[in-house]
């Protein structure tokens, strides 16, 4: 790996951990401070407010900010600051009522349903379903229509119905907790369900509860002030935040500042509740994340691409030289492929062998520029013939993908788009590659040919199917057909048989071999299975921890492995170990 790349990646990393600290610690701390300060000043409004909330001064109405009235006065000459302080009382006490009901009811229902399960769960879940579908605001309005302007009853109802959301979340967590060891231990030691719920389950849920309470408090504040604004909560002339927005809306033109501060205090508090909730959530997920497996961080720079001309050996198709790939992680860049070199000749089947984590799949994917966002080529290069393909821009690679190099992925069941028929996906690729004239008939004929070439029976029928209607083996054949659409010179098959049944595996390997024989196409076979290598590969490299530990013709590797790791691998594959011990036997299967 080149030095500048490393330092650059490290710079990215430290900047990111700084923004993380800001986002996860500092912002929530500020939000909490705001909430505490505002709540405290509102609750001691009688001491802090410079004027009584109802004291009018009609000669001095709609005044701007001044020493006597820091935020000016309203249309009746009442001091806006004083009214804001007093007006916070109905708003924040309403929020407190709603949030307490929300927490108590939501936790109780959630824990009961999640921990006791069985019929308790079924009954509670049905009730929650109904509660979630009821338009809460309508019930709140009904309550207000019936209990004259009793905003506390309204907030109680709001908390009650919103509690269904909390109960859902808590129920899900409880179902998972129930299986945890410490709960098992408590159960075995004979604690009553009530004690287990209150002593062991409840504390484990505190984090999630605080998150949900904080987010809900923001919503409750919006509803409370909304009702005040509509004139349904606090009767005039008593001050309330929502009511003040309503008063300000009458004098928008004369006193825009009034609207700004009355809505502003609601906005600030809502945003603070939201930020506190988000911050708590981030903290919670930080706590759960296993140390070291942090969020990946993009490497910003590609390797300074070598422009070495390719050595003029016409039989060599792919040249990989001093090739390194790294991924950015929260603990800095990690080199996954370390300075490897190899060549693949025209028409040969080349094995890329290693256990998981050896870098073989990453090597294969990087050749087509298919690495995830945080990965990059940090040294060396790869050429197809004389064209450099790695590193290369997406633009350059588009001419290579599908046309020069075909790719077959590991899991056929997830390698195709589940939302489109096989025919739709195949014709899209055929059309994109543009090898046949653009007529619908020609494209369809070509697609059917491709399905036939991978020995799929009844191709017309297959074209109409969705991926979930086919078996793994059939899907893998479809995936190979897709890869063949552009008649590539090289096919990269990433563990093409691993996810399949043993009986199906042999068929796919036979297919690959016959395709090579018919088309003279080279194949890179990425695999951990030495049996597969012995079966169809001409040459192979063995990778371990990002390095090549063995390379050469397959016979040489099997009968004269130099590297201890390869020997170990061979020994752990029983029939090959036996074959190797008995050189007289043919390994062809």
């Amino acid at each position: 790996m080149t030095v500048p790349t490393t330092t650059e990646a490290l710079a990215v990393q430290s900047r990111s951990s700084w923004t993380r600290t800001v986002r996860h610690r500092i912002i929530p701390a500020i939000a909490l401070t705001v909430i505490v300060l505002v709540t405290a000043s509102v609750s001691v409004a009688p001491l802090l407010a410079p004027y009584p909330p109802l004291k009018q001064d009609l000669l001095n109405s709609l005044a701007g900010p001044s020493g006597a009235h820091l935020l000016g006065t309203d249309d009746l000459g009442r001091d806006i600051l004083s009214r804001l302080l007093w007006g916070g009382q109905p708003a924040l006490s309403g929020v407190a009522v709603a949030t307490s009901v929300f927490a108590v009811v939501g936790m109780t229902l959630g824990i009961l349903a999640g921990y006791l399960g069985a019929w308790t769960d079924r009954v509670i879940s049905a009730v929650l379903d109904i509660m979630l579908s009821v338009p809460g605001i309508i019930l709140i309005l009904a309550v207000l229509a019936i209990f004259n302007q009793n905003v506390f009853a309204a907030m109680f109802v709001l908390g009650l119905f919103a509690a269904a959301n909390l109960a859902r979340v808590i129920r899900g967590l409880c179902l998972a907790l129930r299986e945890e060891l410490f709960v098992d231990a408590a159960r075995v030691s004979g604690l009553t369900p009530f004690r287990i719920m209150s002593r062991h389950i409840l504390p484990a849920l505190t984090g999630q509860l605080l998150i949900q309470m904080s987010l809900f408090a923001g919503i409750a504040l919006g509803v409370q002030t909304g009702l005040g604004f509509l004139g349904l909560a606090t009767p005039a002339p008593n001050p309330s935040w929502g009511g003040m927005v309503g008063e300000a809306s009458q004098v928008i033109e004369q006193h825009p500042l009034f609207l700004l501060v009355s809505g502003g205090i609601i906005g600030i508090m809502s945003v603070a509740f939201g930020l506190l909730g988000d911050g708590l959530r981030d903290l919670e997920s930080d706590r759960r994340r296993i140390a070291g497996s942090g969020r990946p961080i993009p490497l910003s720079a590609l390797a300074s691409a070598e422009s070495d001309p390719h050595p003029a050996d016409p039989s060599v198709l792919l040249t990989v030289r001093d090739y390194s790939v790294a991924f950015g992680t929260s603990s800095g860049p990690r080199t996954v492929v370390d300075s490897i070199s190899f060549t693949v000749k025209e028409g040969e089947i080349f094995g890329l062998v290693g256990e998981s984590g050896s870098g073989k799949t990453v090597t294969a994917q990087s050749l087509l520029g298919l690495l995830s966002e945080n990965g990059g080529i940090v040294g060396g290069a790869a050429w197809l013939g004389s064209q450099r393909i790695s590193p290369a821009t997406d633009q350059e690679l588009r001419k290579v993908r599908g046309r020069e190099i075909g790719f077959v992925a590991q899991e056929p069941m997830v390698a195709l788009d589940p939302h489109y028929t096989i025919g739709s996906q195949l014709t899209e690729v055929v059309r994109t590659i543009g090898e046949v004239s653009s007529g619908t008939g020609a494209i369809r004929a070509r697609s059917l040919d491709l399905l036939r070439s991978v020995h799929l029976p009844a191709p017309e029928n297959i074209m109409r199917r969705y991926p979930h209607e086919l078996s793994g083996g059939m899907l893998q054949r479809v995936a190979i057909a897709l890869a063949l659409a552009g008649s590539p010179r090289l096919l990269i098959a990433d563990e093409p048989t691993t996810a399949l049944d043993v009986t199906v595996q042999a068929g796919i390997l036979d297919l690959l071999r016959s395709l090579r024989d018919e088309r003279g196409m080279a194949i890179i076979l990425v695999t951990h299975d030495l049996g597969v290598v012995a079966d169809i590969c001409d040459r192979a490299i063995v990778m371990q921890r990002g390095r090549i530990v063995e390379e050469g013709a397959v016979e040489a590797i099997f009968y004269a492995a130099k590297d201890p790791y390869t020997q170990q691998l061979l020994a752990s594959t029983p029939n090959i170990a036996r074959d190797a011990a008995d050189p007289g036997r043919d390994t062809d299967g």
Partner: protein
Amino acid sequence: MLRIIVRRLLLSIPLLIVVSGITFILESFVPGDPARSLLGVNATPEQYDALRQSLHLDEPLVQQYWLYLQGLFHGDLGRSIFTNEEVVTTVAGRLPVTLSLVVGATLVATVVGVLFGVYSATRGRISRRIIDVVSLFGSALPNFWVALALIAIFAVALPLLPATGYVPFEDSPQLWLSSLVLPVVALAIGGVALIAKVTRDSMLSTLGLDYIRTLRASGVSRRSIIWRHALRNSGLAVSTTIGLTLINFVPGTIFAETIFVLPGLGSAVVTATNLHDIPVVQGIGLTFTLIVIIVNLLVDVAYGLLNPKVRSS
């Protein structure tokens, strides 16, 4: 597919009963009774008894509720205590206003939200941060205040659009449209942020899936991968969110219609609440519940259309 729809419809029956039942029970707690408030203090006891009888107020609560449900079944929501107008007539007259508001806001929120979400999923992290911030403020700022701010800016400071009022489509399509612009925008803002966020998150996880890699490896263009394949897969999450947003817009009309003085259901329910006109509150409440049920049904249908596995089963 059909089974899902039938199940939804069956579930909606207890829901309607619960909503009407709760309001009905609450109503029975009201101190005093409608007959008294309708007749005023000068009525004779005979008049009072007669009215009570005609309103079925002399029967037990369960019986009254049963009568109400029977009325519901025949499309009878009762009469307003104050105007004596059939609640059904009020609802029918005001529903178009509310629907144009809700449908308009949903269209705006969907188009803008999805475009913004796709853009930020595919181009760079700065726009991701911007969406986070915008969605925080979009959802945290009270929408009645946003509506007022819009009026202050686009109707008062820059007189581009009418601040309040409604022009029926039949009178002038152009004025109808301009009378709806600000209310629709005020309503849509919170939804835009939510839809953009869900679209982005869902697109980001879809773009990491294996079949996207297959498509890229096959040389399929970036445009097709994003708009045809990745967005399609995000369709489930996005359509759920659009449904949720629409459901949130329904109570949102209460504020939007009051502030912009639109003659819809939302402004009517506020007036009725202030007047304790319970049949109207009840009737509009049921209408809102019905809208929620229909939206949920549409979301289920969208699920089926978007997911071949559901469709074929």
